[in-house]
């Protein structure tokens, strides 16, 4: 079975810090994705499962309201029945299930777009660089680690390559560096510390380890660090980083 685009998934690392002091990086967390879509306008959130059996889990949500304050809410799943949040979310920061679903769990804005679908066996999704705050007097550089994984059960992605999309979102402020090891668990003491297991950070296309010529076999994954540069006194922005995953399949 050939690898398809939906087989290629970006996952969080074990340590996605909530501030500039805690550990950053580590091994892959194959339960938490780093891709989702914010509500197109501030909205209550709706959750439901594709299975009527999902009635015991809660979904812990963190996000911001229209005023920019961080809000939290714990929502209890009720099988396939829609459950609506009390709070109105302008954006989502993290969403994590207390336990994996029997079915796929959909998170959607009420009356707006779908935010994400949490697949069976996974726990949720998050936004990298949680609460990343600019400094009044000095520039700042933050490092957080994510992974690209081939979830195909049998096929290999040959020539697996990462290609940042230029001139979109925060492309001018975020570069990336592939770790010099396939499933490396490297972490740094905090996200202001540069990782050592990366040859270079850049914004061009780069193949996976080793030497940019590697492959992603079934269930194989490659870690890479995101480097975000913040200027002193920079304005707040809600944006994104866009990166393509490419390769050939048989």
């Amino acid at each position, binding site marked *: 079975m*050939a*690898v*398809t*685009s*939906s087989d*290629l998934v*970006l996952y969080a690392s074990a340590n996605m810090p909530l501030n500039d002091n805690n550990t950053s990086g580590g091994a892959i967390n194959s339960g938490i994705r*780093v*891709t*989702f*879509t*914010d509500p197109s306008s501030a909205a209550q959130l709706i959750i439901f499962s594709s299975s009527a059996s999902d009635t015991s889990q809660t979904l812990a949500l963190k996000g911001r309201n229209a005023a920019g304050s961080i809000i939290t809410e714990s929502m209890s799943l009720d099988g396939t029945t829609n459950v609506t949040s009390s709070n109105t979310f302008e*954006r*989502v920061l993290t969403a994590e299930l207390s336990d994996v679903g029997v079915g796929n769990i959909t998170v959607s804005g009420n009356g707006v777009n779908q935010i994400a679908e949490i697949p069976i066996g996974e726990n949720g999704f998050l*936004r*990298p*660089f949680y*609460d*990343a*705050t*600019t*400094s*009044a007097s000095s520039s700042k550089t933050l490092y957080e680690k*994510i992974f690209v994984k081939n979830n195909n059960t049998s096929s290999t*992605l040959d020539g697996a390559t990462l290609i940042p*999309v230029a001139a979109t*979102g*925060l492309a001018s402020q*975020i570069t990336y560096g592939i770790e010099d090891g396939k499933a490396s668990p490297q972490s740094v003491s905090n996200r202001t510390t540069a990782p050592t297991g990366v040859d270079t950070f850049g914004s061009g296309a780069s193949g996976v380890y080793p030497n940019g010529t590697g492959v992603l076999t079934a269930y194989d994954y490659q870690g890479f660090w*995101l480097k*975000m540069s*913040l200027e002193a*006194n*920079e*304005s*707040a*922005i*809600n*944006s*994104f*980083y*866009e*990166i*393509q*995953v*490419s*390769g*050939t*399949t*048989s």
Partner: protein
Amino acid sequence: MFGFSPLSETPLSTLPGVGATIIVSTNSIPVEILGGTVLTTKTIPVEIIGIKTTPAGLKWVLSSRGVQWVIDPQELKWTIE
């Protein structure tokens, strides 16, 4: 006397070019078509928060005869300003 054998009496298989077995060889040539290039675009939401400011607290001021005291918010003591 020349003998004569009617053609119909000669087994066909003895005639040159007649009755040869035709061999048909079926060859299976392996050919693959790859799924081609897989290209998927991933959008990672990222936010940047501006400088966090602490709202100014209430300022307690005591004025008397042209002199002004304020409460130091750290020490909670009156100091001449």
